[in-house]
């Protein structure tokens, strides 16, 4: 019974194993970044960056077809340009970073749509942009795993300054010149993970696996290490359940995975012990007895 439901799909089909491995790589790489995005009140930045990389990937696709390399480089370049440009504008003018980021990603998005439409080729770009977790080949898997490893490594190096930035950005800025470096490296991590995730889940769904588990983890843990651990577990669990639902009930895989993460978020919201709806509104009996 459990064998048929949970294990047989992965034992019988290589593409299911590949999809799961790809999703685990994305979970390990992207969710810690998502946790920091949440702690720095930048969750929507992830969404903006996802839109910013989309045109770069599209241009890469138009230049050299469904080449993993060209689309990856295109996405990275477009994402980095938007991140750097909006950070630069925020530092040299009076416009705040969120406003300049919004401006730049919208420009980038419009440019991408323009290039795609005027190219005149109607090959279904949406399939490309929505990604196909069921069709991960060896190079895509290697890319996903490398991105995840690199992301974890860089995050480990940046851990202290990042935590300081979350707690008190003014303090870090006053004691260290590393504030700017930390900020941009962190944005680079966001872009890199989104580009990796977009090969597996598509640009739009990649943001989901980055943000939703972090938001759900918020209701289970208080320490940053705890948040990251819970978030990564929720992401992996969602990937597994989502793929199985897609297998047993003929659902498209990407949305299935993100919706499971969404259900996880909803349950955490209600039942989570740390500030969840029930815990928050229950009479505090624990403390009386």
């Amino acid at each position, binding site marked *: 019974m459990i064998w048929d439901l949970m294990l047989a799909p992965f034992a019988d089909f290589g*593409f299911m194993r590949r999809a799961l491995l790809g999703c685990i790589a994305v979970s390990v790489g992207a969710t810690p970044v998502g946790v920091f995005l949440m702690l720095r009140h930048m969750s929507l930045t992830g969404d903006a960056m996802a839109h910013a990389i989309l045109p770069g990937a599209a241009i890469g696709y138009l230049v050299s077809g469904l080449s993993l390399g060209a689309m990856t480089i295109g996405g990275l370049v477009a994402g980095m340009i938007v991140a750097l440009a909006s950070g630069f504008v925020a530092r040299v003018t009076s416009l705040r970073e969120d406003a300049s980021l919004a401006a730049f990603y919208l420009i980038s998005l419009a440019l991408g749509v323009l290039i795609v439409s005027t190219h005149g080729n109607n090959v279904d770009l949406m399939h490309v942009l929505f990604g196909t977790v069921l069709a991960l080949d060896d190079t895509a898997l290697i890319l996903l795993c490398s991105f995840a490893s690199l992301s974890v490594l860089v995050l480990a190096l940046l851990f202290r300054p990042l935590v300081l930035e979350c707690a008190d950005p003014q303090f870090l800025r006053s004691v260290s010149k590393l504030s700017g470096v930390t900020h941009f490296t962190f944005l680079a991590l966001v872009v890199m993970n989104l580009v990796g995730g977009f090969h597996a889940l598509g640009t739009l769904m990649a943001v989901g696996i980055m943000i939703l588990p972090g938001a759900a983890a918020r209701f289970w843990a208080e320490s940053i290490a705890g948040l990251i651990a819970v978030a990564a577990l929720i992401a992996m669990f969602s990937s597994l359940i989502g793929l199985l639902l*897609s297998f047993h*009930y003929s659902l498209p895989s990407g949305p299935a995975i993100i919706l499971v993460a969404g259900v996880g978020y909803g349950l955490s919201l209600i039942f989570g012990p740390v500030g969840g709806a029930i815990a928050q509104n229950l009479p505090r009996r624990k403390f009386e007895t």
Partner: protein
Amino acid sequence: MTSLRSVFASATALATLSFTIPTASWAEQPIPVVATFSILGDMVERIGGEHIALTTLVGPEGDAHVYQPTPKAARSVAEADLLFMNGLEFEGWLERLAEAASFDGAMVVATTGVSPIAFEEHEDDDHDEHDEHAGHDEHDEHDEHAGHDEHDEHAGHDHGTFDPHAWQSLDNAVIYANNIAAGLAQADPANASEYYTNRAAFVAEIVALKSDIDAMMAALPADKRTVVTPHDAFGYFAEAYDLTFEAPQGMSTESEVSAADVAALITQIRRESISAVFIESITDNRMMEQIANETGATIGGTLYSDALSGETGPASTYLDMMRHNATTLSEALGS
């Protein structure tokens, strides 16, 4: 006074002239027509020849399933006297486009008179043929297969109840040619005889090609008659030559693939030891490459389903496309 009269006379003559001359040159001008996609466009071009100015909305290598009309397309439609469409709900976007462009010419539906394959009927056909053809086992397998995934798959599409890819049968191409010639003759009676001459030449080529393809398909061994393609566009070809086509994406390229669809296809490829899968020019082929990889099947080649190739490609005209597809299939399956 006489001079005034002569001036008046010449002015009248001039006016008459200026009324007659443009009318004379009007008839010489090619009539503006629009075809919705490259394959239909090629047929219209063959039959219309120099008497038409053709605009094809979805060009070579373009996917008409997901086409987004541009203002330029709307302008072509607005200016056209004749609009050629495939019908059978292939061009779901056309009605809105024609309305938005306030198109007031005549519409020619190329599939008028084609006996369309219904999705359900198509499955029944398959399964009956296999029953008499390959014995009981395969019948059961097909029963099971048609039972779940194909029905599920089709439920989600916004195609109609019929398979629109009717041009994949050469017999239907003759009907297309008849409809196109009749439409052109009605819109431009002066050149009607030429349209019918062009039609006859085109049909003769179709008939010649058909006997070639008939021979190729007849030579395929009985156990090598299942073909895997990315999207289900070859129903008419399958019916004509008693082949079975399987596709993870179903009838339209718009639908998203689920793990269940891919798994069902892989299971079938393994069970029926299908040796080759094919890729299409208009779809994302990474999925097929993965499936080939996993099942040990080889990629048999590229098939052209819904769009012609560019000028230099192997399928730049309708006839070349049909020949290319048949040759690719017979080389991959026959050996």
